[in-house]
């Protein structure tokens, strides 16, 4: 391992991401958290480029750092920032997270190492995509051919997910939902239970 091992870049970016995540956890300001979340996404997009996932990087940059932040800001313009408040169940949360993280790290010690070309993941299906897809689909971008053809059904599902989300947002805050706000308030008293 040399100082100039390209792997350092990954680790550096990941370290940056960790710092950002840590700051987000500490921050009280929701607005700043959202901005940092955008930066987090952007950092991850950079990392994805380094890790050869250009399509994912492109998408993460436009969605995570772009649309997502815009939607957050749009929502936050309707939701006033509340005052500072202590954490709920900080100990329990920490315990759960540490246990989960420990399980995850200790449980994966015998995983194939990073970048190992002989890992099973690269040998079975993926290998066939790389060798067969050009002939079968005439599309040199394997990600596209897998996305749209081999696993095109997943992508139909993905489109349906977006469709679902749009419909859901529409039904929740579309049209004249405010007219309905008063009615539930009355229903409240009738059906209230502890």
């Amino acid at each position, binding site marked *: 391992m040399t100082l100039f091992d390209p792997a350092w870049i990954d680790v550096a970016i990941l370290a940056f991401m960790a710092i950002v995540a840590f700051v987000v956890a500490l921050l009280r300001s929701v607005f700043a958290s959202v901005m940092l979340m955008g930066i987090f996404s952007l950092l991850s997009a950079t990392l994805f480029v380094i890790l050869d996932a250009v399509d994912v990087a492109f998408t993460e940059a436009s969605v995570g750092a772009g649309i997502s932040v815009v939607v957050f800001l749009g929502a936050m313009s309707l939701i006033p920032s509340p005052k500072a408040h202590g954490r709920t169940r900080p100990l329990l949360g920490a315990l759960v997270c540490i246990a989960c993280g420990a399980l995850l790290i200790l449980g994966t010690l*015998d995983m194939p190492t990073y970048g190992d070309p002989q890992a099973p993941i690269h040998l079975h299906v993926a290998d066939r995509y790389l060798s067969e897809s050009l002939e079968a689909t005439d599309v040199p971008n394997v990600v596209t051919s897998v996305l749209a053809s081999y696993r095109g059904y997943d992508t139909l599902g993905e489109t349906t997910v977006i469709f679902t989300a749009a*419909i859901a947002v529409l039904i929740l805050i579309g049209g004249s939902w405010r007219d309905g706000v008063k009615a539930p308030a009355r229903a409240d008293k009738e059906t209230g239970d502890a």
Partner: protein
Amino acid sequence: MISTHLPILQVLVPLLAAPVLALLRGRTLSYLVATGFVVVAFLIAIGLTIQVVHTGAVSYAIGNWAPPLGIEYRIDELTVIMLLMVTGIASAVLIGGGQSIAVEIPERRAPLFFALFCLNVAGLIGMTVTGDVFNLFVFLEISSLSTYALVAMGRDRRALTAAYQYLVIGTVGATFYVIGVGLLYMMTGTLNMADLTARVSGVESTLTIKTALAFLFIGLGVKLGMMPVHFWLPNAYAQAPSTVSAFLAGTATKVAVYVMLRIVFGIFGIGIFTSSYLADVVIALGIFAMVAASVSAIFQSDAKRLLAYSSLAQIGYILFALGLATEAGLTAAILHLFNHGLMKATLFLALTAVALRLGRTRLEDFDGLAQAMPATMLAFAVAALSLVGVPLTIGFVSKWYLLAAAFDRDGVLVAAVILGSSLLALLYLWPLVERAYFRKRPAGAPEIEEAPLALILAMWALVAVNVFLGVNSQFTVNLAANAARHLIGAVP
């Protein structure tokens, strides 16, 4: 010719209903369209059942890409049980719930509501038929997202927080599932279930594969309402619109259990399940749930919440049977999966009728209801007795197999716990029946009439199936036993 494409049509029909519905205006039209699509889906499920019973498991390669390259649909006995249940209950809920939806959902949102409902159905079916672990995640999200929105449609403002709570924990659960899939993929290089089955056995001894199992288990545990990660469930069931509660209670958690069966037994196999102590954990969680949730149910003041806790307890039974990891246990788990879905859907449909007429479902609202709504309350009473495990209903069949499975492995004590918990079921359900039948309507209570005919028909259709399969359980028991045998035999 069309019969070879039934597997994909099973998902496509409700899935395509959604964009069509989103283009429509008006309540009546969208109601009819949605109901039509869902009923067609039910008919397809029946066709598939006939196909599977006659010719055995069916495989369908989407895009004509041979698995594991492409995504495969795989339908066997276990799958058709779930398909029948999901589409059947969806049909019953839509057919019966028209009037209730009309009251609870504003006219302008009706088409979108039905679109979400169909998406939910499509998502659950997609989870059921798929033979690909990642495709499963996609459909899980379709059903989850639509569920969150549907729950939020409840009339009380607490429906919103219930939906939010469900969204957060549901997303965490789904992400855990994705982590598990990642680890699994890392070790095997494939996402196809059948292929995974073959390849997991090669890396069975690695820690990573066990960690993968743990994460898949927790992720699905959240979705199926496993105690102690259950807390979204009572709120969601209690606050959602009545028809949505009826549908969810009958299907959503059941499909999650089904997926767990598929993954734990279909992919990992009993060896890993039992050697990693997970089996014991599952048994313990199951027993904990059947006792703790039943006790909680006794103290509820709202019937919907009460039934929600009862669901948690019943899921405890299923988990327990699943944890036994024997053929008898799996048979019992699968049977109860189906049977409980049927019973709970009936009970919630009855509550839909009550909510429609009274606007609420508190326990005291049941006083004297049997006089005003005799057909509804009789259906409720039969389903309640079934849940307790009274003979000649499917509840008894379930209980019989559960006990037999318990005897097979753990002996008398556990069997006694199961029976004790079914007594608790009596304790929390009986007050409702007693109030309905043996109390008078409070003075000054508004005059109410019987539930609409469609709703009664839907309820009684489920009750009829309940009693028929309770007296003559060959069909379901054989399907379940075959399915269990296949699951057990999946990995030698």
